[in-house]
């Protein structure tokens, strides 16, 4: 049986008496690309912030590769690469220098040469090798998204968490992003947990889906199971709407 590398166990998050995430549990297996869906305000970004240790849960447990995010935050975050909301880089630095600066926070990248090599590798992986020395302020949105994925890959993570990575991308940019995610999964066996509103995109890359509504887990399972609800040649969007409307 394939091991779970991302586990959410009975997680609840309350802020000022309001329940943003309510007793949610699910798991993602190694090498899976798992889509994370929900209407606006469903609690997706809150759950992603919980997973990345940016906020702490009111109750429950989150584990990355078996490591508890609250109890061993540093170790757990060492196994994650993440892009939460729109990537906001330091605009006065080039793409390469942004990554070099962030690479200093990865203890496994010891020494200048190791950092430079890794930055060169990830820039090349996301197709930005030729623009690495340009200031981030001059990048298009698609390039910033790709740089956001590059920074997530710096520490050779086991799990990559992407929050709305296709936001604002044109069709070509979306296609490039989709191909990038699939190739990273195939080349390095990475596990992806991707939140998005672009259901056609998710349908094409995700083998599994987790759906939440009003902070509660609504559905989890294989993508094709959910799509079948909308008929034999159905679309994920139709199935999702039907599911959310109840």
């Amino acid at each position, binding site marked *: 049986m394939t091991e779970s590398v991302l586990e959410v166990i009975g997680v609840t998050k309350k802020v000022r008496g309001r329940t943003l995430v309510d007793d949610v549990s699910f798991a993602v297996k190694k090498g899976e690309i798992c889509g994370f869906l929900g209407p606006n305000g469903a609690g997706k970004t809150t759950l992603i912030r919980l997973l990345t240790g940016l906020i702490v849960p009111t109750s429950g447990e989150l584990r990355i590769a078996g490591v508890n995010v609250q109890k061993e935050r540093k170790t757990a975050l060492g196994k994650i690469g993440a892009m939460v909301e729109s990537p906001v880089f330091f605009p006065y630095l080039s793409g390469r220098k942004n990554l070099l*600066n962030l690479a200093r926070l990865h203890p496994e990248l010891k020494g200048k040469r190791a950092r430079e090599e890794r930055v060169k590798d990830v820039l090349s992986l996301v197709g930005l090798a030729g623009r690495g020395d340009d200031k981030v302020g001059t990048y298009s949105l698609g390039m910033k998204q790709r740089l956001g994925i590059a920074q997530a890959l710096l520490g050779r993570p086991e799990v990559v968490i992407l929050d709305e990575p296709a936001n604002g991308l044109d069709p070509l940019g979306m296609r490039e992003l989709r191909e990038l995610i699939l190739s990273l999964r195939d080349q390095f066996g990475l596990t992806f947990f991707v939140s998005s509103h672009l259901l056609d995109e998710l349908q094409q890359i995700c083998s599994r889906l987790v759906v939440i509504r009003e902070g509660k887990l609504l559905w989890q399972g294989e993508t094709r199971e959910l799509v079948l609800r909308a008929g034999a040649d159905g679309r994920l969007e139709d199935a999702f709407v039907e599911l959310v409307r109840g």
Partner: protein
Amino acid sequence: MKGLWMSEWLRLWSRKRTWGMFLMMPVLVYAAARYCLEQNGALSPGMPEYATVWNFPVLALAEHLMTVFNLLVVVLLAAAVTEEARSGQLRFLLLRAVTFAELFWAKWTVVLAAVGVFLGAFYLECWGIGWWLFERTETVGLFYREGAFAGGEAVRYGLAYYGLAGLTVVAMASVMLLLAVMAQTATAAVGMGIGWLLLSFGWPVAARMFGAQVQSLSITHIQHQGIAAMLADGRPMMRWNLGVMVCYVAVCLTVGYLWFVKRRGLDV
């Protein structure tokens, strides 16, 4: 922690505004030198205010400490703390194996180290420009001290003055750090910082009837008169002023730290 510190340090020095302020230092020193040369015309040699090579670094710092160095910490902290937190840039750092507490202390110590570099450069530039423009007199007068002092003694006095000035900037920076952590935008952080400076300027006037100790609750008052008083014969204000500065640092850093860590890096 070393990697985080270096990352903060390099980012601070990658900003044009940091270099802009750094490159302004010799201009400010030169302006102070021209002012002192003009003042010398109306003073007799041997007076503490009479600028020579030996005491020019102290006179120049007294001229610029309250404005330039205090504004420097306001700008550096607003950029390093408020701007990065509110824009979402801190999130990139916190998505790695970095704790909120480590980030807080890295930012604080990096800004202090940068101010130390500015202060050190200012001191050396004072010597460079002072050597070129001022007399090398045999003796020099020092504030609140009886007698005339040789150049070597004046240099030791100058170093002590710079050390205490550095402490006042640390105390001011702790207040500014608290304001930077609380502010919603970098502009608000700068505005609140300038507001605090104006309050500090006004306090000694408002508290005049209560005496020097109450007036010295203002850090800018310590910077303006207190450092010289601390180095006067008998060191009359040394303990009080040091106590005031320690209180500012302890209270502001504690509240700022708790605010930053409890709010999880200002709700990244």
